[in-house]
């Protein structure tokens, strides 16, 4: 078991009910895409899984820790096993890329190593390896405020690759990237999860990206789970129902998905994945 949400509800401080009665369970190594209109509760759900917010109802267990532990010192240990990729990369502009990547292991390193790395980065080879996988090795010693938005997002992903978590949570990780790069990045995350047997949960704005790449699709609507199906069983009427609040068009990566140059995407994907 990787995580199990049992009747989880989340009421925000202002009284807004973002999640109610959520039942969701995942085995180790599963790859799940969360889809749904904006405001449905995808970020809220990922926040509960990432221990950023404790559920106000029900029981949440993550990697064998239940939320009763979430306020104790145990939570630090749990959190070192969770890697989060955010919509806008939370990295200070004045930091160097190498430091930003190494920061992924602050929870695992002894204090002396974290301190020393502020002066001299102690695992340059490790940071370089992670950056190579997102095709950014040449920016190893650049300052983050010299990168483009897409490059910075990939630094955030490299940090999670370096952290080597058992559970990867990605909140719209590719909405700032162009379609080709977005596909390559999603494939990279999936390959990483597969190679290390890690669980991956990603919320995605683009339906085609979700269905084309993930085996299990969870539709979220108004704070509850609308459907939870293998990708092959997700039908167009189901999707129209899910996105009813956003009009007739389904949100997709490219407006005509089949016109997307598959060759270019594949090339970028391999470039970003190997080396």
């Amino acid at each position, binding site marked *: 078991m990787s995580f199990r949400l049992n009747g989880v509800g989340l009421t925000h401080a202002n009284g807004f009910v973002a999640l109610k009665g959520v039942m969701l369970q995942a085995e180790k190594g599963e790859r799940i895409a969360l889809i749904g209109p904006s405001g449905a509760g995808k970020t809220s759900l990922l926040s509960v899984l990432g*221990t950023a917010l404790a559920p106000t109802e029900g029981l949440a267990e993550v990697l064998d820790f239940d939320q009763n532990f979430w306020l104790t010192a145990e939570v630090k240990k749990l959190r070192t096993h969770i890697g989060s990729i955010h919509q806008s990369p939370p990295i200070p502009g004045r930091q160097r890329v190498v430091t930003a990547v190494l920061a992924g292991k602050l*929870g695992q390193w002894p*204090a002396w190593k974290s301190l020393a790395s502020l002066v001299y980065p102690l695992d340059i080879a490790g940071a370089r390896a992670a950056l190579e996988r997102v095709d950014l090795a040449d920016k190893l010693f650049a300052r983050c405020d010299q990168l483009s938005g897409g490059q910075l997002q990939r630094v955030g992903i490299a940090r999670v690759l370096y952290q080597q978590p058992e559970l990867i949570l990605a909140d719209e990780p590719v909405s700032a990237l162009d379609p080709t790069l977005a596909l390559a990045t999603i494939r990279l995350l999936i390959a990483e999860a597969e190679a290390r047997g890690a669980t991956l949960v990603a919320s995605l704005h683009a339906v085609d990206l979700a269905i084309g790449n993930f085996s299990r699709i969870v539709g979220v609507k108004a704070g509850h789970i609308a459907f939870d199906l293998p990708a092959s069983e997700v039908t167009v009427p189901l999707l129209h129902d899910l996105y009813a609040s956003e009009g007739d068009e389904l949100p997709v990566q490219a407006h005509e998905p089949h016109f997307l140059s598959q060759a270019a995407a594949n090339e970028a994907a391999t470039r970003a994945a190997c080396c």
Partner: protein
Amino acid sequence: MSRIDRDPAARSRLIGALAMLVILWPLFQAAEVKPGVLFDPGNLKVIGNFLAGFLPPETGNEFLGYLAKATLETLAIATAGMALAFLIAVPMGYLASGAGREKATLNPVTRSLLTILRGIPELVWALIFVRVFGLGPAAGVLALGLTYGGMLAKVYAEILESVDAAPARALRHNGADRPLAILYGLIPQASKELASYTVYRWECAIRASVVMGFVGAGGLGQLMDQAMKMLNGGEAATILLAFMVLVFAADGFSGWLRRALDTPPANRASPFGWRSGGLGLALVVSIVASFSYLEIGLKSLLTLGPAFDSVVVEAARSIGEFVAGFFPPDLSAEWLAKVGKGIWETLAISVVGTLLAAVAGLLLALPKWRAPFSFLLNTLRSVPELVWATITALAVGLGPFAGALALALHTAGVLGRLYAEALDNAPPAPGQALRLAGAPGGFAFLYGTLPGAAPQLIAYTLYRWEMNIRMAAILGFVGAGGLGQLLYFELSLFHHAQASTVIIAMLLLSIAVDQASAWLRRAMR
């Protein structure tokens, strides 16, 4: 480790760190930093007794009467000094500013005159004026007027240059001359900033007028100086309390005024309502009241003719002689060597004091639970450096270390407050993300939050250093080493040629530190 896995920045970092050490080590030596002395049992006992003497504060009626009078005098000195500063600043700022000119030619003569006015600390002016006009508030008012006049003029000039120049240019093309173009084209855009800065300066003037009392320029400072000299702790405590109340009140009042400037004008023909009318009236009344309370004869300054009797001529002549005594400055090699040592010591006091303050301020800015720490920071900064110096001199003995400590105590209060604000405003997301990846709080701060706030922290610290070099130059007045001690000594002995060299050295040092700080700010961006 393979070749490519070496940090290319390591070399320059190492060199930078070594250079810092090479520069800082002798500075710490020159400041005679001896932390051990602080905890010397003998000294601890002396300072313990001294501080115990602060309790209970003096509350006798007679003394409270003196205190009230001195408080009023301090307020009056600050207000009258600001009025004078304003009178100086408006024409000088007009001359110095490139605003509203066809070609942006700056006026270098006015600019350098302003640099001299600002560069010589108000306390030095006060010390000189006390010698010309005798003990009393007139010296303080003049000193404030000159230094703050210089500061206001420079900032006024810069504010006018910084607003959109197009409206003024259009007016000039239509034939308006420069004063009108500025009045109608620039002042409306800049008025809020101009007023806000003036109010802020008035608040500083209150602190400054207290400090000038230490050299005999009247007000709370003079009372404090007397109480300290007679080791009357109870009186000193009451004065200190009165002073803190005054500073907090001025802080609050100036904050309120500046917020009031933010409220949009009422929707009617005249932009002035009861509040601005009342304030304007209060302003005029308080300026007139200040001058008459201080018994500075406005009339004798303004009415010519019969007043120009032989006494006035005599006074003018003696002032002329006094001023002439400062020229030429003593440039003998022997004296220059002494002044050089004074410069080095002053630099050391300012650097060590600022660094200690930065460390202490950061530590005090970090705790989550702010209330007790804000109180501590406010207390630290409301006690002027010179007062701290009289206390630290008891703790570690006369000399530069006492000066550095005094500077550090006051500056820690100032910087701590600014740091806390900057850290509060730093983006929270990076630190939060690291905590969610299991990083301990301290490291989430070091890797996530601090880099976001660092540029501001550095800028605050360097700006403060620029102010501290001026302060370090005068801490010697109470025996805390550096150029101030030399100046105080030479002035007491009427060695004006030597004093003049020291004043020039102070001026050059403060200009040099301004340049160094600007360079460091650019380099650390």
